[in-house]
């Protein structure tokens, strides 16, 4: 059977998907064992035992100074920042993206600006960012928003601008005003795309979160990674990165699943 037609069942999908990840793990174990054979105190690619040992304290034992379980406190702080940043970006993308995509005058006026903001690397402007938003939580959330919102806005705007012209015309013949058109035609059709945009933005959002935490913070996954980086403590960094990947992948799967649940019409069989 031709490869295009070989549909893979749910269970086989899971099995196949696990293969490359297992292969990577194997490769890691071999290379790490190799390096340790040459230099038993190699720090770059720690063996699993060392990682478990290093993480044990962070995960299960309260920090002597603050009394917190550091791993969980880091996770909570980072997720809070990320959640807030993503939420604000999503809202901005929805509102600005739809207006840009649907209303030509708005597009003419602001699309250059949005493109400009989208292409300016925010990390180059960190000093100004921290001056504008202080050294607290605001600045970290702001960096995420500035980092991912323009991308999401442009994506939604492009999607809205590509709505079939007939739909806009049709809605107007049915009596829809601009506002009603936005509310009932554009908004619902933007939603599934928005979820896709959030999924695609998760990677960059984590990058910006970690960058922000690397610069000014005293808690968070990114803070911890950059703190122990000074000592090249890969036995902490690697589990933290794996944990971030797990969190992000879970979010991704949840978003995909909820898009399928909520917007059946967008995923429906389309013969």
């Amino acid at each position, binding site marked *: 059977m031709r490869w295009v037609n070989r549909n893979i069942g749910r269970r086989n999908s899971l099995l196949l998907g696990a293969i490359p990840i297992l292969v990577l793990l194997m490769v890691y174990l071999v290379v790490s064992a190799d390096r340790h054979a040459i230099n038993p105190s190699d720090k770059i690619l720690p063996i699993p035992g060392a990682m478990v040992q290093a993480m044990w304290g962070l995960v299960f034992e309260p920090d002597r100074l603050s009394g917190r379980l550091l791993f969980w406190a880091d996770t909570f702080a980072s997720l809070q920042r990320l959640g807030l940043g993503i939420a604000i970006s999503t809202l901005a993308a929805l509102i600005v993206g739809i207006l840009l995509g649907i209303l030509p005058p708005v597009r003419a006026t602001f699309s250059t600006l949005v493109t400009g903001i989208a292409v300016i690397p925010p990390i180059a402007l960190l000093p100004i960012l921290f001056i504008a938003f202080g050294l607290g939580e605001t600045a970290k959330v702001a960096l995420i928003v500035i980092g991912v919102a323009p991308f999401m806005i442009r994506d939604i705007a492009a999607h809205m601008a590509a709505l*079939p*012209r*007939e*739909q806009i*015309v*049709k*809605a*107007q*013949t*049915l*009596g*829809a*005003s601009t*506002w*009603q058109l936005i*509310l*009932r*035609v554009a908004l*619902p*059709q933007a939603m599934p795309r928005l979820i896709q945009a959030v999924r695609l933005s998760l990677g960059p959002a984590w990058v910006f979160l970690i960058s922000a935490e690397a610069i000014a913070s005293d808690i968070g996954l990114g803070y911890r990674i950059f703190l122990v980086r000074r000592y090249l403590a890969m036995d902490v960094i690697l589990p933290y990165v794996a944990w971030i990947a797990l969190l992000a992948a879970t979010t991704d799967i949840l978003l995909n699943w909820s898009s399928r649940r909520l*917007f*059946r*019409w*967008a995923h*429906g*069989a*389309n013969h």
Partner: protein
Amino acid sequence: MNALLSLQNVWVEYGDKVVLERINLNIEAGSFVSIIGPSGAGKSSLLRVLLGQEAPTKGTILLNDEPLKPQCEPDRGVVFQRYSVFSHLTVLGNTVFGLECAQAPLTARLFGARRRAAEAEAEEMLAAVGLSDNLHLYPAQMSGGMQQRLAIAQALIKRPRLLLLDEPFGALDPGIRADMHALITRLWSDYSLTVVMVTHDIGEAFSLGTRVLTLDKARHDPHAPHRYGATVVYDLPLKKQATVEAGTCVDNGAENGPEVNCIITVDETRNN
């Protein structure tokens, strides 16, 4: 001039391709105009211009003696050639949409008793097009003909003053098509709509219309076929209409057309 719509020397061009040329046309209120013509002649383009979706390249269009704005107003309803319904709304949602826009300017949604009233009206219309059993399907789950009927119901529920139909019954079987003919005729006379309908079924064009227009190229340059556009080559007012001129029925070479027993005027219009 007491015409509802008046086209004066209208041209439609895409790039250097002339699609319609020198269209002069008056459409009276309350008439049912059937448009026939070969594939690619520009029938859909003409409807788009009447709808206000596109502005003509040249010429003026007057609606009630005022220039038509290149904007689609709710007094005009449309069924597109490729059935275009909202893919994110169910059958019922698609049909209720027009009522919601009119009755709830702010939220475009109805609740409680008003919603029930609107849904009842929509269900009645959907029953008329034979979709009662499919109220909660999404367009992607429907057959071609079902989507076409939904588009018809969606447009008709608004009872627009000017109704533009582009091959509305093309994907329907004869039984349902007959029902649709009855429905549209009833609404046309009950609400004194003005209807412009493009069709390939010449029987349909003659049995429903009060006037039949034929669009075709009047001149043809074999070396540069895109240089000349189509125009109105025949304009046949039919007897049914109050104001009828004398004439004889013409066999249009329609393969499956019914015997049209009517008196029509073959008056080659001035515009070519």
